[in-house]
């Protein structure tokens, strides 16, 4: 009896170890097979914003190559950077950084150049985005244009009947405890915008001096009693709206897109002070174990029919105007695909904040309630 027990204890890990290693052998043996079978069994790991690894578009890719596409979502740019720097090393193949940390990620050597010639639609992607220099170093291109969009004022139109004209709605005593903002330093940009700091220089929001930061902090402290909860993920914000915990919030287009499908009546607007926005690129990590497969994915996702699906899931603006033939008129309108410069005129796109640590500390101070 006891011998049986001991053998069992020893045998099980041995079997499991063996089965693990045989899996690897399969992957190695398949290296010489034709393209469609070459990657069979591999897993492509995407570290991205919510909605960027949705089955609605990844499944076709997964089926075509017999691979698994797995998305891991991050909740803020800082989280992305610390995940990449924190020793996750080769855990991820593709990332979707926004324009606030894109150039930093390139400079920190966390990603590798991509080969635009392997992306068949590359030259049909928005020229404006392709020409941005923050992810280029010499002849090397590090990012493929993907999506962009605003940090909207999202509100529940059943509760707030009239379209809000100004962000000052957040400070209205009527909505005390009914507001939610993102748990992120972008609130500092937003307060700066409300204070009008970016009237003459858009970059001012990302380079505030101590005096301006002090003003922003005061403003944020005034906002705090109005806040129900800081949301950390888009899904959490969805839940806050769904459970009627909040009526207005800073949010991305994906929130009304998701909830209106479930019968809610959310609307989104850019108030008179303007709004901040983001431009997301897809990049391949330095230590990606599946570099070729990652390039194939970039090629796949940039095809108009797939871009259209990205738009459908997120309602973000997408980089390929040709996708519109696959989109409903409503979706075309929501994503401004016929007016691709609209957002570029209205939004103040995130930029790299040199004093990021200071911004983060200020945000922690606001959360802790320390004056």
């Amino acid at each position, binding site marked *: 009896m006891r011998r049986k027990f001991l053998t069992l204890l020893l045998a099980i890990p041995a079997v*499991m170890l063996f089965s693990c290693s045989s899996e690897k052998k399969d992957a190695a043996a398949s290296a010489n097979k034709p393209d469609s079978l070459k990657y069979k069994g591999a897993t492509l790991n995407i570290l991205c914003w919510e909605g960027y690894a949705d089955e609605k578009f990844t499944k076709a890719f997964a089926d075509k190559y017999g691979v698994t596409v797995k998305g*891991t979502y991050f909740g803020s740019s800082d989280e992305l950077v610390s995940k990449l720097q924190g020793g996750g*090393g080769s*855990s991820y193949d593709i990332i979707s950084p926004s324009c606030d940390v894109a150039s930093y990620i390139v400079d920190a050597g966390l990603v590798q150049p991509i080969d635009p010639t392997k992306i068949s639609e590359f030259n049909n992607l928005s020229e404006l985005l392709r020409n941005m220099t923050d992810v280029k170093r010499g002849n090397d291109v590090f990012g493929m244009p993907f999506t962009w969009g605003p940090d909207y004022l999202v509100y529940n139109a059943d509760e707030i009947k009239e379209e809000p004209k100004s962000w000052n709605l957040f400070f209205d005593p009527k909505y005390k405890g009914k507001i939610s903002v993102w748990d992120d330093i972008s609130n500092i940009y937003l307060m700066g915008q409300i204070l009008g700091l970016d009237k003459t220089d858009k970059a001012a929001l990302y380079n505030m001096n101590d005096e301006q930061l002090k003003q922003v902090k005061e403003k944020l402290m005034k906002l705090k009693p109005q806040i129900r909860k800081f949301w950390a993920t888009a899904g*959490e914000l969805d839940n806050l709206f769904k459970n009627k915990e909040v009526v207005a919030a800073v949010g991305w287009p994906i929130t009304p897109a998701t909830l209106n499908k479930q019968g809610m009546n959310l609307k989104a607007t850019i108030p008179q002070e303007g709004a901040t926005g983001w431009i997301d690129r897809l990049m391949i990590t330095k230590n990606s174990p599946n570099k070729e497969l990652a390039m194939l994915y970039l090629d796949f996702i940039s095809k108009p029919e797939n871009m259209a699906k990205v738009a459908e899931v997120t309602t973000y603006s997408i980089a390929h105007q040709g996708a519109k033939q696959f989109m409903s008129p409503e979706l075309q309108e929501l994503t401004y695909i016929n007016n691709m410069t609209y957002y570029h005129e209205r939004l103040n796109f995130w930029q790299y904040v040199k004093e990021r640590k200071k911004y983060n500390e200020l945000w922690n101070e606001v959360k802790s309630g320390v004056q």
Partner: protein
Amino acid sequence: MRRIFTTGSAALVLAFIYLPLLTIIWYSFSAESVNSFPIKAYSLEWYKVMANDESLLRAVGNSLRVAFFSTVIALFIGVPATFALHKFDFIGKKLLERIVLMPITLPGIVTGVAMLSFFPKIGVELSLVAVGIGHITFLLAIVVTQLLSRFKRLDPNLEQAAYDLGATPLTTFFTVIIPNIRTAIIGAALLCLVLSMDEIPVTFFLIARDNTLPIEIYGMMRRGITPEVNAISTLIFLATIVILILSLRFSRKTND
């Protein structure tokens, strides 16, 4: 009157402990997508959703794997060492006993960030392997505390008898001592499995892309797919009770 007061307050406390758990079980049968009161319709919808949730099932698999390997390795390392702690005196024994207990006496978050900082430096990438190493480290504390008291109750004559029959110390350890405390080992193993399946603070920092079950549930709660969580939680609760009953049985046998 006084009797009613004591009984009443004891009952209230029990209600405080159990009502929230019953709530989850109750709500797991709700048909709605929001947890609202009162429940308007009942269904098994969320169990179906759960059974088809691939990433959740993967997380269960990951958790089982981590828990299994961690427990086995912690036992392999921990049982002989516990025996040595029980049997011999050596320099630094008291210190060693304190160090073993560190992961359960000190807050998990500090252990977590310490491992997060250090592991990549020695080539252990953040991954389920890192999580497993973290788990083994705190499971050692469980193995040592659980088994030390059992070793103390072990009849010393047993060991002596083995020597008298010509067994070497190591043979004695593996063929006489271990089998005699096997129920305690199984009890400790079950406790290790449950604790590893449930561990969050250390796992939170060592995880890369493959989630364990509690981290997956945490993610779901943050993303807000909540009613499904009711269904999983109910199953976790039931599984826990089964394991608890098993481990009570084993520990009772040990006491005989």
